[in-house]
Every structure is written in structure tokens, then in C-alpha cells.
């Protein structure tokens, strides 16, 4: 990475990063996994592994798996958010690896929210 030497360069990097994120949000589906200590303690790593496996099984390549920190609902960990390109972000709680094929199949593939596991929804960011 190139060192930033003034405010304008930071501003330019910010715009570039925003642009990249906006493009990603438009064109890519995302699965965001809560990987704070509580999340990991609740088994987030196993869930991530299952997500990657399931995506591979179905030859799905347009999904990005990213992590995030604590959102405050630690009791409902493992929390994963599913965002279909351009759509709202839906949070699922108390997810175990067994739920992953269903969440990916229903939500990512068919765009149908798995209602019984939903914790909440965030307006698209």
C-alpha cells in the first residue's frame, strides 16, 4: 500500500473504497459472519467452514464471505447476515452448520428469506 501524505489522498482513497464497496454490494451476494469472541465461542468457525463447503458444492462463485465484529446480540450467536446483491441485509441467529444448506439454498439461491431463523433486517448499506 502506498503511504498517504495528505488529506486529499485520504479523501481519494475513501471514495475509491466506497466505490468498491458499492460495486460489491450491487454485484455480489454477501454472507457476513459475526466473528467476535462470543461468535467464535458459539461456533462461528464451523459455520464459516460449512458456508464455504456449501458454496463449493453448488458451484456458487458470486458470493463473498466476510466477517464482522460484535453487533451486541451475543446471546443469539452464531449470527450470520445474508445480503443478496442490492437487497436488504437479513440477520439469522443461532445458526448451526446444519442450517447452512437451507439458508444458502433458500435465500441466496431463491431469494426467499428463511423466516423462522430471522433475527432482524438492516436496510441496505
Amino acid at each position: 500500500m502506498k503511504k498517504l501524505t495528505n488529506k486529499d489522498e485520504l479523501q481519494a482513497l475513501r471514495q475509491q473504497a466506497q466505490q468498491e464497496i458499492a460495486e460489491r454490494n450491487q454485484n455480489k451476494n454477501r454472507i457476513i459472519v459475526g466473528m467476535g469472541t462470543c461468535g467464535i465461542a458459539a461456533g462461528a468457525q464451523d459455520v464459516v467452514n460449512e458456508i464455504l463447503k456449501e458454496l463449493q458444492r453448488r458451484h456458487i462463485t458470486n458470493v463473498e464471505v466476510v466477517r464482522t465484529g460484535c453487533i451486541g446480540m451475543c446471546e443469539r450467536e452464531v449470527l450470520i447476515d445474508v445480503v443478496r446483491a442490492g437487497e436488504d441485509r437479513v440477520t439469522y441467529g443461532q445458526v448451526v452448520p446444519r442450517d447452512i444448506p437451507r439458508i444458502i439454498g433458500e435465500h441466496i439461491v431463491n431469494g426467499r428469506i428463511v423466516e423462522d431463523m430471522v433475527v432482524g433486517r438492516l436496510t441496505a448499506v
Partner: protein
Amino acid sequence: MTFYRGHLLVCGGEGCTSSGCNEVHGAFREAMRKKKIEDEIKIVQTGCHGYCEKGPLVVVYPEGVMYNRVGVKDASEIVNEHLVKGKPVTRLFLTDPISVDQVPKYEELDLFRKQHRIALRNCGMMDPDSVNEYIARGGYSGLAKMLDTMQPAEVVNEIKESGLRGRGGGGFPTATKWEFCSKAKSNKKYIICNADEGDPGAFMDRSLLEGDPHSVLEGMIIAGYAIGADEGYLYIRAEYPLAIKRIRNAINQAKELGLLGENILGSGFNMELKIKEGAGAFVCGEETALIASIEGERGVPRSRPPFPAIKGLFGKPTIINNVETLANIPYIIDQGAQTFASVGTDKSKGTKVFALTGKVKNSGLVEVPMGISVREIVYEIGGGTFEGKKFKAVQTGGPSGGCLPESKLDLPIDYDSLASAGTIMGSGGLVVMDEDSCMIDVAKYFLTFTRKESCGKCTPCREGTMRLLEMLEKITAGEGEMADLDRLERLAKTIKTSALCGLGQTAPNPILSTLQYFRKEYETHIKDKKCPAGVCQALFFYRIDDHICVGCGVCIKACPTDAIEGERKQAHHLDMEKCIKCGGCVDACPFHAVIKE
């Protein structure tokens, strides 16, 4: 190329094949041919949806309606009703195809409705390992703005106008502390981030470090600039390995980008930040002990003054701020003091993060505007106590805090009103208790903690907490006398005023506040030898009600000490001498014949 007005997806995965999807596929083809719509709707065979136990699955697009357990005889109904008439066959729905709008939005969830996120603004919203995402969300623009346009004194002033007070417990005005240090003359100054977080039950600092490490770093760089420091430490307890890892990564990224290190953003300002892992002693959160610990000494407090702002780390002027305090700083500089100060109460501005736990339905981390009432937090955010249980108290401020009774539910939460009610904000633990909690037991719990964590340097704390604990134990054992209450109170007040550091000075708070609000409960323990909550083991016993007992013998198997005897079909008896009060028989008895009294 042919255009279809719709698609019908029949799952052809392994699971569905075994439950007969091929026949179903054929039936659809046949039904569509009959209705002459085979050119309008395309049948597609798909791979597994991952829902095989509900298979065969059929999805109709463009509506995206999913049918499950579709049999051969359902095909014509779906074709006739849905594809021809446009009426979905609801009886085959998996769940009602609830539209996306019906999922509650975060803003509508109890846990989020009353929140106002400033410190936690990025937590859960970005990848903590990506500096680009932080920058995209406005990160480091406060720093850039400051370096470009503000003198150190102006930074201090901006913080002063924001009204920010330290989130680490005491609530001391941040700007006053900074100003003190910025005026100290020295060739070297330090900024320290206190991430010791020793309060049992609190984890907001950890979550911030893990979820938004750059905010904390940015806050430290800004603070360093304001006071004239060029070096800083993050004192993080070693039990927080993930927080340490994320901060380390964030430091590296910030350095690579020239946001940390030499000549930050070309401004000529330098800042070096290092991590110091703490061994995890509660007293090491105290400023002077923390400094000693970084210097490689034993983490023991020393008397103040001189305050660290004048004579701190390695004898140099030093500012210590809490993680949450620091996470607020970039927001204030970037958004302006007024934006921050528009939230909160007169003397407590902004928000506070609480770790809401105990006997509430929704627990978790919540960030709320100062001035919100205890009731709003417990009932509207926390969803109240569990079914059928009565609210009893809320404990704030961790081991240094106190308990508030039901009559204080409408107290606005800010530094001063909590203090005047006999407790403190502390670092933000909020433990809700219901009728099953014994307040003397609660006081005992916190005192056990502080006594264990006392460093032993001064007598009031070392000996005093021991004596306090002994008296509490005496009372919970049913051996207390009324005179003990006065003794407790007197000793508690003495320790408060004579202990050397904050640990000892606040250790008696749980006792004093429970004595203030729950004195009756102490008296019941002493006079009636009863624990109304049924917690203090010595003060209750089990009895089998011989009118209810049917003599089934189930309890005998549950009892680890053979305390129960009886003939089959005759009322059983419980030997109180042998009973260790494990409660096993209570849970086991199908007739609720075992009574606690």
C-alpha cells in the same frame, strides 16, 4: 430464442429424486400440455435446494413461490390454479410466502429500538480487519481534519464543548484531563488506552477492540496530538487474544498507510503505538497500577497526587483513557462537538454502552443515550424479566457499583443521578435481578470478588474487605445479629474514605446500596432466620408435604445423600440432617410435594 412468461423449477437433486421428483416432473409436463401452456412456462430441473426433507420442491418464478412435498397429483392443481389462474396453491406452501417487508427491521427490534450508536457505530457493520472499509465509513477523516485545520488547544476545546466524560468508570471530564496534561511541560508525553476491562460481566471494550479497532487507534492518535504525546500504549488483558490480534493488524495497516508512525498524513506529527498485554488483575485497571505494570513493575497503585497527567509513565505526563472514551473521539472531531452534545443530558453528554445481562429476556450490548431511564432499558430494550418473575433490582457499575430497587426504575441514567442514588455508571455492566436473587448474596458475590482482587497494599482494603465479607457470611449463615448491620455500615464507610485507591474506596458500595434499599431483607435474615429469595442455603430447608406426597419414590433416586425414606404408596420423609439442599428432589418430584421453606 423463446421467451417464457414464467419458469417452473423442479428440484432434481438426489434427495428429491428419491422422493419422486422425476414422476412429478413428468406430471407437470403432462398437465401443462393439457392446458396448452407448455410454450409459456419453462420447466427447469435444478440442483438441490438443501431442503430435501421437504422435497420434492417446486419453485414458480417470477413470483418465487416455493411449494414443498409436491406429489404427482398436485401438479395439475398447481398448473390449473397458479399457472393458469394466477392463484398460488397455499396449502403447499412451505411457510406463507411472507414478503420481505414482514421481517422486523433492526430499528423495530426491542433490542435496537432505543439505541443510539456512536461508540459502536461500526461494530457489526464492517470487516474489522479491513482498513479500507473503516475509511469508507468515514474513518480517519476526523484525524485528517484535525491535522489539517486544528491546533492542539482547539482539539481540547472541541472535546470540552462535546461534554465527553470518561467511560471507564469515574466519568471525569475528558477535556479537563487532557488540558491538564497538554499544559504540563515535558520533552516526552504518553497516551495510554485502558483496555483492562476487569469488571466481571462487562465486555464492551473487548467488543470495540474486536469489532472496530481503528476507531480506538484513531482516538488515541487524536488524543496524543491534543496533549503533545508521540508515543502510546494499549494495555489489553491477555485473556483477549482476538482483540490483541485485531489491534495488532490495525496498527500495521495504519502504519502502512501513513496514518500512524512518522509524519502522519504529511503533517509532521508522529505517533507510535504499542500493545502491552496485561495479566488480568482487576487492580491493574487503576491508573497508577496500570502504569506500574507497563513499566514492568508489580501492578500496585500508588497514592495520588501527583496525577499521571503530570507524572505518569516513566515519570512523564500521561493520559489514560478508556477504550469507549477513545472510540467516541474521532466521531466528535469529525462530526463536531455539537452533534455529539445534542444527545444525552445536561451534564452527561452522548451515549453509554451497557452490557445488559441477568434475568432479562433480551440481553446483549446496548448503546443508549444518556438520560434514558432504567425502566426503558430493562423493559423496552431488555424485554423485562422472565415470565412470572417479579423484578427486584438492577445492579450497575460492576463490583464498585450498587443495586437499585424497583422504586428507582424511573431514574434517568447519567453519572450524577446514579451517584446520588448510591451507585455508579462504572464501565457499564447492568445486571437485572428478579425475586429469585438474594441481595445479601449479591453483595457477598461482589465483595468476594473485590477481596480477592485487593492488592493488599493498604490496611483498610486488605483487612476491611475481609471483615465485611465475614459479616455478610455470618448473616447469610443465619448467625447475624442486628448490631452487625451498624457494624457493617460503619466499617463500609471507613473503608470508603481511607483506602488508598479506587478499588478499596468503592468496594463497600454493593453493601451500602443494598443496606439502603433492601434493609428489610437483611433484617429478615437476622431476625427471622429466613432468606426470602431462597438462596442462602443455611436459611431454608426442604420438607415433604405428606398430604401431597403419593409415595412414588422418584425423589429417592434423585437424592445423592439418601436423605429420603419411605414405604411405597406412603408419604415419604426427608431427613434434614442428611439433606445437602441440592434441590434434586424438588425437580424430580412429579407431584410438587417437596416444599422449600
